[in-house]
């Protein structure tokens, strides 16, 4: 009975959050706050995609920026060279990323934790170095370290370019809802069950006859596909990117931070982590970065350490507890 009431309250709560999320662009007119919100959702989306491998498959990928880059480069090169709409280019990038993810995943997902983390990191860095050394692939212009620039077309849906921030906001919100739904469905499916079993105790799962690596590779493919979509979004939002900005280690690390701070392996963790870290990152950089260079990153590092010491399962745990308590309070009165 109690569980039923809870799930009803959850539904109301979710509906309210969703309503607020949809209404935000109607209320907030400041483009700079919109920009921060968009980046927050962007990272929530990326981390949720990452979470399919990093959270549920029990490994620590540190090279996901490679797939963001594959997405951005694929859709942009197709657009610049063949005039293909980035909406289709995005899917092409996703498929390519998934294929590469499988090729990389088959050998590496068998590896132990640290080896997997370092292997994915080396793959990400290797890809960056490769792109920086390539000017053209056949007729296609990659432009090495100088990066690619997308021409400004103004408001044009087919070109994936919008003058209003609200359009980008709704795109990334929709993408986030899709990945959250997929995560939820996956967690409830056989795959999710096997994955979490394999993540916690690979030997026991293998003894039960579950082919854990196979499910991990599947999770990797889905994760890479959705990560690449974010690459196209990034490219279309900034209209310019270069290897260090999109293929660097920074982004791979930031995704992992958000996941761990939020609570990896949970649906809400990546969203909560992004909601805490992104605005914090932006505000401290803008307001402290100029006064004391480096101070904002010291604060960032301190928060990472504090959260890991006091909430090693991430901030979603105390927040869920708080939510439950409030719920009981309301029901009690």
């Amino acid at each position: 009975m109690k569980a039923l009431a809870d799930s009803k309250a959850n539904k109301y709560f979710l509906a309210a959050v969703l309503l607020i999320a949809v209404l935000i662009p109607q209320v907030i007119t400041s483009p700079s706050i919109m920009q921060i919100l968009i980046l927050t959702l962007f990272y929530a989306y990326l981390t949720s995609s990452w979470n399919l491998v990093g959270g549920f498959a029990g490994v620590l990928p540190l090279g996901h920026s490679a797939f963001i880059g594959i997405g951005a480069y694929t859709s942009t090169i197709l657009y610049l060279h063949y005039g293909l709409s980035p909406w289709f280019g995005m899917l092409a990038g996703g498929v390519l990323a998934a294929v590469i993810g499988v090729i990389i995943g088959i050998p590496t997902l068998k590896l132990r934790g640290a080896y997997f983390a370092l292997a994915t990191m080396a793959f990400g860095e290797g890809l960056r170095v490769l792109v920086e050394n390539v000017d053209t692939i056949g007729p296609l212009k990659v432009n090495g370290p100088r990066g690619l620039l997308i021409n400004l077309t103004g408001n044009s849906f087919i070109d994936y370019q919008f003058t209003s921030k609200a359009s980008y906001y709704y795109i990334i919100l929709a993408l986030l809802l899709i990945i959250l739904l997929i995560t939820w469905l996956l967690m409830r499916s056989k795959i999710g069950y096997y994955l979490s079993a394999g993540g916690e105790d690979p030997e026991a799962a293998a003894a039960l006859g579950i082919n854990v690596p196979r499910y991990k590779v599947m999770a990797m493919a889905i994760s890479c596909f959705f990560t690449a979509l974010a690459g196209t979004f990034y490219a279309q939002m900034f209209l310019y990117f270069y290897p260090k900005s999109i293929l660097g280690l920074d982004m791979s690390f930031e995704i992992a931070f958000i996941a761990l701070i939020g609570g990896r392996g949970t649906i809400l963790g990546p969203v909560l982590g992004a909601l805490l870290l992104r605005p914090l990152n932006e505000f401290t950089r803008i307001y402290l970065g100029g006064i004391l260079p480096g101070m904002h990153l010291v604060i960032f590092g301190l928060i990472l350490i504090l959260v890991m010491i006091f909430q090693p399962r991430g901030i979603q745990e105390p927040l869920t507890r708080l939510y439950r308590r409030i719920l009981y309070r309301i029901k009690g009165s």
Partner: protein
Amino acid sequence: MSGTALLYTDWLDEMEIIFESLLNGLLMGSIYGLTAVGLTLIFGVLKVINFAHGSILMVGMYAAYWCITLTGMNPYLAIPIVVPLMFYFGYFMQQFVIEPVFKVEKDVREPITVIIVTTGVWYILDNLALMIFGAKYRVVHTSVTGKLFELPGDIYLLQPKVYGFILTFISGLLLFWFLKTTLMGKAIRATSLDRDAASLMGVNQYKIYRTAFGIGTAVTGLAGCVLVPFYSVYPSVGIIFDIRAFIIVVLGGLGSIPGAILGGIIVGIIESVGAMYMPSTWTELVIYGLFLLLLFIKPTGLFGSKHDF
């Protein structure tokens, strides 16, 4: 001069250059190995990738820099000051920063939260250095800076690199001896093999972790002392050696000290000799490619095995 004679001298020149680059790769590679020994030792015992490793190297380099600049001493005399200091730095960092997280996650073999804590330490150390010392590049002029050993055939070897090579092997052997023969060394090895069993045998595992982390940090401090006479010091210098060190320890087998030194030499030689045949930006690619290939064929690295140290 006849045509054949010209060809012959060209060939001789070419051989000299290749030989010179091979020697340089060997020297530089051994120093890379030294920067990676601490990382592999800490991983072997704690099963944690220490992302603060580059920052620790940076701290060691600043320590050596100030020692030498303030006193004007011979750069290698700074070693007995910097190395013990770095040991305690690592010991207390483990005790007060990393251990609390470790205790929460003590059932997990490779605690990922600890990796994030080390990353936090990396951010804090690098940026504290930026705030304290500023972003400028510091170079110290010591009695060995820019000095050469000249070999026949116009081959020049930088003295500080040669000393670095020698120190790498001395410290590698010392560590090996320490781990194989002393009581503490044996306890460290036992803990790295099976921390629970060692704990049951009466080994205080947290003390072992602190000591191992301290030793790892001290060796990295030694690497800092070796680098300072020919390398500039600045707050983000660690990153340059960091990623290379990660690759080296996996090449050599995580946890293996001889592996780290050999892995370093391999990377050094590829960088040096490889660059003679391709643009040097491509040598990086060769290293990453080789690294991934090795992971697919022999994931435990060249020397790594479950029971190796």
